[in-house]
């Protein structure tokens, strides 16, 4: 991490600078503009949700914040000071931890072995320097408990955990290793409703512990309950940035799905014969249907519902 700016540290008590800020960042790949003029900020104890459809630029933004890409325009600031990350390691040493979708965990290994993988605590000296197994187990248990996760058996292979538990362990790991800002890349996208709930509790837990959280999702229903700010991207540009009291859930849903576009689409879909099969099937996913917002119910298809069901009854 290189500090390119002598911006003073925040005076305590005064309006503290954001933990992490992006100011007009943009990124080009050749002549393709992936992201342009996007700004957002994350404060301690707040969740900033980044919403957008596929291709809206969410991934590019995250990669800039987490140090994978350097922005071609604009700047990233940590505690008010401009920084240039050259690798995710730079970001990590500034306290910015990213939990990517693949989680960087080895499914066949026990939870506690995964928790400390690459940063194993050791004891002993010289050739007797060894992995402090007892400390690793204990600290894993503590780290999970601190995030409200009570796993019966830290010896369990990570691959036997449910999707939500796996995300939870990855989040707890980032928190345990001293993250101040947690960037979560679509943590709920592959999960069923209950499992997504498990992850959202973890997000809330991180917020309660005073971390700043950047929560990337394309699902406004996941973002709204935990979010404090909502940043909506569309085709690489900022569509808007709202505090929770400035925007309602329905507005967010409409914004996300492109409002008029969606109305036209639902109109169009109604005219395609044989599409009745795509109507939500109450027998398969009563829970989803009961809780789905009306505008979404039209588009809810049972295609993935059978897959989701076993996850929930496990």
């Amino acid at each position, binding site marked *: 991490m290189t500090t390119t700016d002598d911006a003073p540290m925040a005076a305590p008590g005064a309006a503290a600078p954001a933990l992490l800020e992006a100011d007009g960042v943009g990124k080009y790949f050749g002549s393709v503009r992936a992201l342009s003029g996007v700004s957002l900020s994350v404060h301690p104890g707040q969740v900033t949700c980044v919403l957008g459809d596929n291709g809206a630029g969410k991934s590019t933004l995250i990669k800039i914040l987490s140090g994978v890409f350097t922005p071609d325009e604009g700047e990233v600031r940590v505690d008010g000071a401009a920084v240039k990350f050259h690798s995710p390691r730079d970001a990590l040493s500034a306290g910015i931890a990213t939990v990517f979708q693949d989680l960087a965990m080895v499914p066949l290994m026990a939870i506690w072995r995964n928790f400390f993988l690459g940063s194993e605590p050791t004891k002993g000296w010289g050739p007797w320097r*060894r992995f402090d197994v007892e400390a690793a187990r204990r600290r894993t248990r503590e780290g999970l408990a601190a995030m409200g996760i009570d796993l019966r058996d830290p010896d369990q292979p990570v691959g036997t955990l*449910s999707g*939500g538990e796996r995300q939870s362990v990855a989040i707890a790991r980032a928190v345990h290793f001293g993250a101040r800002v947690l960037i979560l890349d679509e943590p709920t996208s592959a999960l069923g409703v209950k499992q*997504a709930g498990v992850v959202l509790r973890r997000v809330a837990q991180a917020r*309660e512990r005073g971390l700043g959280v950047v929560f990337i999702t394309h699902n406004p229903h996941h973002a709204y309950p935990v979010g404090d700010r909502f940043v909506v991207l569309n085709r690489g540009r900022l569509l808007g940035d709202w505090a929770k009291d400035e925007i309602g859930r329905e507005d967010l849903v409409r914004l996300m799905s492109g409002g008029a576009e969606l109305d036209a689409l639902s109109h169009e879909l109604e005219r395609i014969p044989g599409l009745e099969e*795509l109507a939500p099937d109450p027998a398969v996913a009563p829970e989803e249907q009961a809780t789905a917002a009306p505008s979404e119910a039209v588009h809810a298809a049972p295609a993935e519902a059978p897959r989701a069901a076993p996850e929930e009854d496990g």
Partner: protein
Amino acid sequence: MTSADTAVARPDEAGPPPAGPPAADPGAGDGRGGQAGALTRILRRPALGALLGAVAVFVLFTITDSTPQHLWLTQTGFQAWAQQAAFFGIMAVPVGLLMIGGEFDLSTGGMTGFCAIIMALLVGNEHWNAWAAVAVTFAFGAVVGAVNGIVVTRSGLPSFIVTLATYFVFRGLSVGGVLKVNHGSTSIGLTGTDHPGLKSAKDVFGGSFAHSSGLPVGYQTGILWFAGVTVVAVWVLARTRFGNWVFAVGGDADAARKVGVPVRRTKILLFMTTSTAAALVGVISFLQTNTAVSEQGVGYEFYYIIAAVVGGCLLTGGHGSALGAALGACIIGMALQGVIYSGWDSSWDFTFLGAILFLAVAVNTLTYQRAMRARR
């Protein structure tokens, strides 16, 4: 029109999540409680199948033993199979570690023979001090492993292919090279016993211990080396950072790299371990028998792999046990000796081993799946 795709394809996200309070929720909120059962814990031990298999094979040969003195249950019987087990086990344990690390080494069998030949040439033909020859042989083993490992990790080629190539290179060298230096003979032996350092080197690598009236020849020191290699491997795997990395690079090398595990270094060290162990076997076999023969050890790489797989090492990496591989080697040693004691034709060795391999893999896969599925 991607928004249509996502809107239709992801119904399971349509519902709002339960926005409960961020309080501690036992079982991470999915209502599945209870400790993992004792059975699950035991089934999760990869060495379990090998242990049961070893007991079964031991009992089988206790019953089928047809020697007049019932040798199987005597020290003579134990010594006979333990010595064979040691020869396979010194290799099977590091081959198992490498397999857990997600790689194969097919050059191991040929390397044991080639290293014996290096010893024979240096001591027998060149009249080197035996200890210097031992040092050179070990160094040679380490270098071959490093080359294997560097080629595999840098080129991205499957280790199966790279070490197959190494294997053929050394197989050719061990025949052609020996014929050339040794004036047309494929066997190199010691002509005298007064080579410098030979006596002490023999005591360490090719000697025997625990002589008794029941077993005048005693046990070979190779058995001690086998035990030593196993203990160190078990400890390294379970109790060191390196051991953690071995599981990780075999289980998911990408994930391991992301959290800062030196994936290449770990794999190269594993290759160096197997080929150095091959040097150890070569040294032991030469110092025990005073001879080395071309193509000695060729084909044994499969026995090592069988032992590791029987011991619960997953062919695809990421899971396994050093103790299991050692037990697998014991099963092979018992099988080879037991077939003789039972008065069966030794051609049945292969069939017997094949059946054991198949059974062990079936049992391991079932128990492993059961353990992995325990909470789904």
